[in-house]
């Protein structure tokens, strides 16, 4: 203990710096607008009025519903289409597969917003604005390269002899994939679901363009709108931000082991 005091000191400072902003949001959200005490001070009396107002006026519950639908749709497509494409990439070693892999890695680097003009005018032409499927397809496409990369690294570590045994028994490619490969994919699928889920839940750039009607707003757009309208009522805005981040913080604390594992899987080069 004595020898390690400096470690505890650094750790304490880190924890303080990393928790301070989150603490400030919650402390502010529990104080009325008229409370002029420092934002650092914990409320002397808990005040729930900001939350009442947020739930009544901001449409945050509808936004959470919208975000759930969009996130679920995106995750399902990314998992299904991604694992499918990863199978030949991991198993066939030829020029085509290699080129597809390079292409996928390239797409992973592209800043989605750089081609927003092209995507937006295409979405207009296929009437995809203000639709769930429009934003889901866009998010899923940009998430796809990452999931293909994760799945193909993982499948490459599944012994080929399993495929060969199944084929010896007369199973076709599709049956081999569904019955032999898919059941092995559970751990990497957890990582893909969590990382893609958080990414889509927090997405803002494309949502701004695709979801223009208030009824279609997701969580980030709703928080932005609330902050825009509540210029003076920052305590109300803090409550709105708190409602938006509580679900994801709870999920993170419950599943943090899997989140860290997912981050590791995605960073280790295959």
């Amino acid at each position, binding site marked *: 203990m004595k020898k390690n005091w400096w470690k505890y000191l650094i750790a304490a400072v880190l924890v303080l710096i990393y928790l301070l902003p989150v603490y400030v949001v919650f402390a502010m959200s529990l104080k009325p607008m008229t409370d002029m005490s420092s934002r650092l001070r914990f409320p002397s009396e808990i005040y729930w009025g900001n939350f009442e107002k947020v739930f009544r006026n901001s449409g945050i519950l509808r936004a959470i519903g919208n975000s759930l639908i969009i996130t679920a749709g995106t995750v399902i497509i990314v998992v299904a289409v991604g694992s499918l494409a990863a199978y030949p990439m991991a198993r066939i070693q030829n020029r085509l597969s290699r080129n597809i892999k390079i292409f996928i890695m390239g797409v992973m680097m592209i800043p989605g917003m750089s081609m927003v003009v092209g995507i937006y005018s295409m979405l207009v032409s296929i009437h995809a604005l203000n639709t769930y499927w429009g934003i889901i397809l866009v998010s899923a496409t940009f998430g796809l390269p990452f999931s293909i990369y994760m799945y193909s690294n993982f499948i490459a570590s599944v012994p080929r002899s399993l495929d060969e045994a199944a084929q010896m028994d007369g199973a076709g490619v599709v049956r081999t994939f569904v019955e032999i490969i898919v059941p092995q994919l559970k751990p990497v699928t957890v990582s893909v679901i969590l990382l893609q889920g958080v990414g889509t839940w927090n997405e803002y750039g494309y949502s701004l363009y695709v979801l223009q009607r208030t009824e279609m707003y997701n969580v980030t757009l709703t928080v932005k709108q609330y902050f825009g309208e509540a210029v003076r009522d920052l305590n109300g805005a803090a409550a709105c931000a708190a409602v938006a981040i509580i679900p994801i913080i709870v999920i993170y604390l419950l599943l943090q082991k899997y989140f860290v594992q997912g*981050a590791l899987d995605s960073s280790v080069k295959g």
Partner: protein
Amino acid sequence: MYLFYLPAMLMLLFFVIRPFGETLYISLCKWNGYSSAKKLIGFKNYAALLGDRRFYTAFVNTLIYGFVSTLLQNVIGMGCALLVNSRFKGNGIVRVVVYLPIMISGLIMGYIMYFIFSYDRGVLNDILALFGRAPVDWLADGRTGVCIITLVNSWQYAGNCMVIYLAGLQNIPKVYQEAAAIDGASGWQSFRNITLPLLIPSITTSVIVNLIGGLKLFDPIISLTNGGPNYQTHSLMTYLNSQYFLKEKAGYASAIGIFTFFLIMLVAVAANGYFEKRMVDG
């Protein structure tokens, strides 16, 4: 088995390749983004970029957001990883807490940070007041604004570096450091000559991921400064957004997009090449 590629390739064709081609074409046009009057004007949009001081500012800012954030994130992340990897009670808490902000949307994090950095009743000014200092209007000046956005971004995503380095550190056999200690190497010498070279694969991943993330920074700028004051804190991506969404200059915005696309590709390829060479030599 090639059919398995089909759904993914169709999606990428429709939502990446086609829009990319379209953006490329629009960048050669004068267009407001919705009318049918799209006029081909050649490279005039790109020529206009060269004379646009706001574009130049956004370009420099983007390089700061990319490179300075990457440096800070890797230093903080490496420090946290070394701390968490060393044995002491509470290292799990540090890991959980430092990774936490990654869960929160960059946009919402920007708003939260506004509570800290705002002039009127901002937390930072409250803390300064404890030391008897006058309040500072942090976000009213472009230069401090860029610094704060860089700091916020580095702080929020340093956890990613920490996790990457933690994995790298745990792969280094303990015997190496033990042998060095027996030979009388100091902690710093053993870190510099043993740990660091063995971490180069982790450093490569971490640097490239964060460079790309920083160069396309968007969300926290929108919520912290919205590019202001007077266009001084824009990144290329938020400048594109302002030209397209607010000014309806679709052709010009496309040119900014295409420029950023090639900038990021260039940086990523160069960084990859740089580290690959080091790995062979090291």
